[in-house]
Every structure is written in structure tokens, then in C-alpha cells.
């Protein structure tokens, strides 16, 4: 058994230690936000946060994760009460098919937790590992800007705001 802390709650997971986090999230914990895209760390659809930084959950074996804080898109907010970054993505209508969006939101969340007012270049650099096949990149960039503005005007600390405990 491996203990994983996901969205603020400990979970006992009976999985082979080499199992990628993505499968445990989706198949054991019913957290289906993170998606399987390429399985090779090339697309970012599976992006979640570990200790505040974005990682590819498809390439992160659970053996690396005991004692660390995992956050998924479900931890940011709900459909009724979306988090700051989620709300910005909705307001910019940044999703088309939506498959990449949970990963995009998590990559943006990790950036804005580290750096609440990034320059356009810093946003592009930070978001570059994540791909959108529909081509809504421009809306996604606007959504990140909007989230940064919202953080600034509301004076919220993104690390604390709206965290949802799941499971």
C-alpha cells in the first residue's frame, strides 16, 4: 500500500509502485479531470501539481509521491464554485473540445502560484509543454492573463483560495 495525499486528503492505494499517477487518479480515486493524451510527456493533457509544480502524471510513478502534496483540477473548485483560474478559462471560453483544458488549467495554476504577475513571455514559456489540438492557444493565453488580473484585483493568494478537498 502507498499513501498519497491528493487535494488535501490521504488515500491508501493498492498499486504497483511503478504505476503512473494518472492511472491511480482515474481508476482508483475517480478523479477523471487529468486526461491520458500521449503517455510520453509530449502533450500535457495529464498535467497535475506536485508540491506546487506542474508534472506529467502519465510519467510520474506513484513510488515518487509518498509524503508529497498532489493537486488535481478537482482540487481547484467545482462546477458550481470554480476556482480563480477555472473561472478565467470559462470566461474566455478557452475550451473547444476540452480534452487539454484540465492540464492547461493546472499548468496555469502552477505558474500563477509561483508568479502571480508573469510577463507574456513567461506565460508562453510556462505553458509551452501543453498542447491544444483544437488551436485555442490564444484564448488560453488570454485566460491566464485574466486569471492574473483577477488575482491582482481581488488580492487573493492562489495557493489558499478555493481549495477543494476531494475524495
Amino acid at each position: 500500500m502507498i499513501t498519497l495525499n491528493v487535494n488535501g486528503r490521504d488515500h491508501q492505494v493498492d498499486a504497483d509502485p511503478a504505476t503512473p499517477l494518472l492511472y491511480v487518479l482515474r481508476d482508483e480515486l475517480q478523479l477523471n479531470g487529468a486526461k491520458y493524451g500521449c503517455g510520453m510527456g509530449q502533450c500535457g493533457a495529464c498535467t497535475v501539481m506536485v508540491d506546487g509544480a506542474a508534472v506529467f502524471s502519465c510519467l510520474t510513478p506513484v513510488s515518487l509521491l509518498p509524503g508529497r502534496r498532489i493537486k488535481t483540477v478537482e482540487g481547484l473548485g467545482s462546477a458550481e464554485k470554480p476556482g480563480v483560474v477555472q473561472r478565467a478559462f470559462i470566461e474566455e471560453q478557452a475550451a473547444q473540445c476540452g480534452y487539454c483544458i484540465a492540464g492547461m488549467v493546472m499548468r496555469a495554476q502552477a505558474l500563477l502560484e509561483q508568479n502571480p504577475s508573469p510577463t507574456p513571455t513567461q506565460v508562453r514559456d510556462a505553458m509551452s509543454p501543453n498542447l491544444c489540438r483544437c488551436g485555442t492557444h490564444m484564448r488560453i493565453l488570454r485566460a491566464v492573463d485574466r486569471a492574473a488580473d483577477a488575482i491582482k484585483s481581488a488580492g487573493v493568494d492562489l495557493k489558499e483560495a478555493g481549495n477543494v478537498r476531494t475524495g
Partner: protein
Amino acid sequence: MPFPLLSPRSKLGRAGLRTAAFAFGCAALVASVPGCAAPGAEGAHVTPVSPLSIDDALVRKGATLAAIGNCASCHTAEHGKSYAGGRPLATPFGTIYATNITPDPETGIGRYSSADFLRAMHEGIARDGRHLYPVFPYDHFALATPADVQAIYAFLMTRAPVQVQVPRNHLPFPVSVRGSVALWNALYLKDGVLQPVPGQSAQWNRGAYLAEALAHCSACHTPRNLLGAEKKALPYAGGEADGWHPPALNRSSAAPTPWTSEQVYTYLRRGSEDAHGLAGGPMAEVVSNLSRVPDDDVRAIAVYIASLSAQPAPIAKARAAEGSSGDAQTVARGQVIYAGACASCHDGGRRGNGALDLSLSTAVAMPTPANLVQIVRNGLTPAAGERGAWMPAFGAAITDAQLADLAAYLREHFAGKPAWKDVAGAAKKVREEQAKLSQASAR
């Protein structure tokens, strides 16, 4: 006389040869590059060159030579304008910011005559008479013909001027006193253009000239002494650059399969080679710059570089980084990490996506964990704006101790070599250096 034969002041014993070189260079090129004059005292000669007066063919030749010389790599800051400087260069002595070499008269080299430029390239002395630091590899450019240096001058003076002041260097005393470099020059700066080696082919000699006088391959691939000079007794025995270990290219190469000149050519041309893997870190920039260089020159460099490992050479004492074999538990934990994080690309039986069979990896087989740590933590990405194979970064997912576990497994399973000592310490150092450099860049 348009260019009085003043002796350069700083170097004893060099003056005669240097002056002759100036005279030759200026005489040969004064027709095509105006403003050619021997360096005088500071500010003695201010004749900005009109880009329109410079011959196109010379500019094109200079573009090729500057690409081989890898000038853009150091003299361009991250997201900065090309050649406008400002990139922080971490040296063992402190952080030095690369200078602006666009033709801006205030902050760049706009007031350099071609003779000023030749002196900077051959002797490491700026137009105002100050010593430049040897992180600028003028000890290599001193081997280049004056004609080639003037072509690079023609190329740089026809770039768009960019007015940008680079940050001040962070150097401790006494290195902060530029005059201290005179001592270094007396010890390590050699005179004279590189001469062909009789008995070697014209192609080999061309490659040797390009690699030594312009590309300065050995600046990274040769270990350095306490004063930061290349150890001439250990040429190409593997060095240090930006926290990477540029591998040995001589007989002591750790490459699991030997390099042929055809393979070196492919690697330099494409940034990857099936039996050796991807160019990473500073080498990715070299490959990117070489994309502007004609095939003949890249082939010549490849012939020369491949010849280095074909002859007996002294072996560097870098083996100290190797310890005993990893303990069974460490290796087992590493195997689990490999299975979950690495195997889907590196061991999936699907070739052609560029993921190397790690039994062919030089990074795993070399005497230090530096490159493996860099690659695992930061991934491998093509140079900005270039396409190419891409490995994701694992730095956010893997702790220093876990990286050490992984390294122990890779060493034992793929290289069949003793575990490296203190991989976790190396990983910690890379993290800290990066934090320092990103702070320096943000300034």
C-alpha cells in the same frame, strides 16, 4: 600611411608578429572594410563604418564563420535581441555578462574599427584598452586568420544596432581588476595563426582550423586548471559548461560505441544520431548555429573531431566521481522509477521517436552524473524556435534522492559501471545554480 604600425602595448614578445598580422589583414581588407586602422589609445579613432560600404560576399562569409564560432550563443540573452549581449555566464570566478556586439556606438561595438576588432579577437583587448575576460575565447580566435576575423567584423557591423547596456559583472577581487588578465595572457595566450599539419588531408586541416580557431570546441570539451585555462596536456578529455559535462572526445570517450566521422557529421547537422542520442544543453545551441553553415565545413569539423578518438590520448583523472556499485535496495527503487517514468519511451521497442536505448547513452556511461542530472531534471528541448526531438523535464516530479536511486539503476543495468558518488548532491547543486542564474537573468 593609413594605419601606423603601433606596437600593441600589453604583450611582450608578441608585438612584432601581431603588428605584421594587422598590416597583412588591413592591407588585404582595407579596400572592402573602411575604418581599418591599428588600435590607438582610447577613443583615438572614431570612424563608424557604413554598413552599405561593406561587401556582401564578405558579410556572407562572416555569417558562416560567426555561426561556426557560436558567437550568438553567449552574446544573446534569453529572449534578447541577437548579439545584444546580457547573457549571464557563470564562471568559477563569478558571473560575467556577455557584451553587446551589435554595432550600436554607445553600448555595442559601433565605434570599433576593423583593427580594434582584430585586436579584441586576437589579444582580448577592448577598443578602450581594457582587458576582456578569457571566458571570451580569444585564446582560440587568436589562431584565426586576420582575413576570417575581418569577415566576422563585416558580418557584425551589418547587424541591426541594439542599444542595451549589459549588467555589471559580479567578480571578486582580484579578478575584478581587469589588469589581472595580462598575467593570464602571458601564461596561456599563444601567438600565430593555426598552421596546417603536414600529412593530414586538406579536409582534416580545414576541420582542425575551424574547430580550434573558431568553433573553440575544446573550450568546453577540455578540462581547465585553477586559473581557468584549458589543460593542454589533456586536450578533449572532457570539461565543464553551464553545469554540464561536455564529454571527452579523445580516446577516453565514454561513448558505448565509437563515433565515426559520418556519425559526428549527422549529430552536428541534425542534433541527434541514432547510436549516440540527442545534443543537449549548450550543445543544442551549437547544432542550431551550425544549421547556417555549409555542409563542407560541417563535414570537415566532423572528420577532425572523429579523428580525436582514433588516436591514443592521456586519460583524465575524472574517475574519482565513481564509487562502488549501488546497493541492491537503491538499485531496486531506481528500477521502479525507470519502469514508471522512462521505459514507455526508452524501452517501449518503438524506435524512431528519438528515445535512445540507454545502453548507448554517453550520459549514463560517462564519469560524472552531471549530464544525466541535467537531462532528467530539465529534459532535452531543441534550441528556442528550432524543431527537434524533445524529452520532458522531470525536475518537478523527482527529488534529489530519487534521482540518485534512478542513476544507480541506470549505471548498473545499462552501463555496467560503478555507481556515481553523491548524485543527490549533484542534483542539489544543479537546482541551486539554476535558481542563481534565473535570478541573474531577471535582473
